[in-house]
């Protein structure tokens, strides 16, 4: 149970960064931290004590396997996470070129 709570604390740290920080790069880092904590939480749920990795082998025929379903879902989520982080960084670069700063309070003249 303590592991679940620590994972939740990691998520809250990411949330804290998104709400309080003004620097765009720090906001992107916080979003990535939130994503990592959720990935870890899924794998923690699927763990079974004394089980082996979900690969069928001739030697361990009757072994218990770890739940493979969360692993399959997170496998796609990791790669998508990299793609979304890259998209956010691209937007940050464009904003820096236009305004010359990463401060989100100065990037508020997006009218018209």
């Amino acid at each position: 149970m303590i592991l679940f709570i620590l994972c939740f604390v990691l998520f809250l740290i990411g949330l804290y960064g998104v709400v309080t920080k003004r620097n765009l790069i720090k906001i992107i880092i916080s979003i990535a931290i939130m994503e990592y904590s959720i990935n870890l939480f899924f794998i923690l749920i699927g763990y079974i004590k004394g089980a082996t990795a979900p690969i069928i082998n001739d030697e361990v025929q009757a072994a218990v396997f770890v739940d493979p379903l969360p692993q399959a879902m997170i496998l796609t989520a990791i790669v998508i996470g990299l793609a979304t982080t890259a998209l956010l960084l691209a937007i940050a670069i464009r904003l820096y070129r236009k305004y010359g700063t990463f401060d989100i309070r100065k990037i508020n003249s997006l009218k018209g």
Partner: protein
Amino acid sequence: MRGMTIIVRKITQLVAPVIFLYGLYIIVHGHLTPGGGFAGGVIMAGAFILPILANGSILPNLRKEEAGLELMESAAILGFLIIAGLGLLFSGSLIFFSNFLHKGILGKLVSAGFIPIENIVVGVEVCAAMTTIFIALTVFSEEVPK
């Protein structure tokens, strides 16, 4: 982007093919050992990224490369859909993504129906996507707007 010293460049020449081969191994054995299309594709992208970082880059060459990578990525997605559609045609059960090839013996290299082919297609797609993102973010962002 500037290149690095000659030591780094020589070692890159020696190491990059080995990384590429390792990525291929991971992709092809994806249905037997840990790994698969996603892991192998990202490793192959690393093999493309390393020479660009070590040798430096000239923008016009990279533009050509980027056009080729886009073509590769689109072709890979199209291939994925075509494989799924072939399952619809040949399995006789009218199911999208049905495994129509022969299953073979569990644990052999040529087995598991069309899963190895899908692994290769997804590997190519992920490799092209990662390399394009890298080129766009590191090299194109050095351009100065008029």
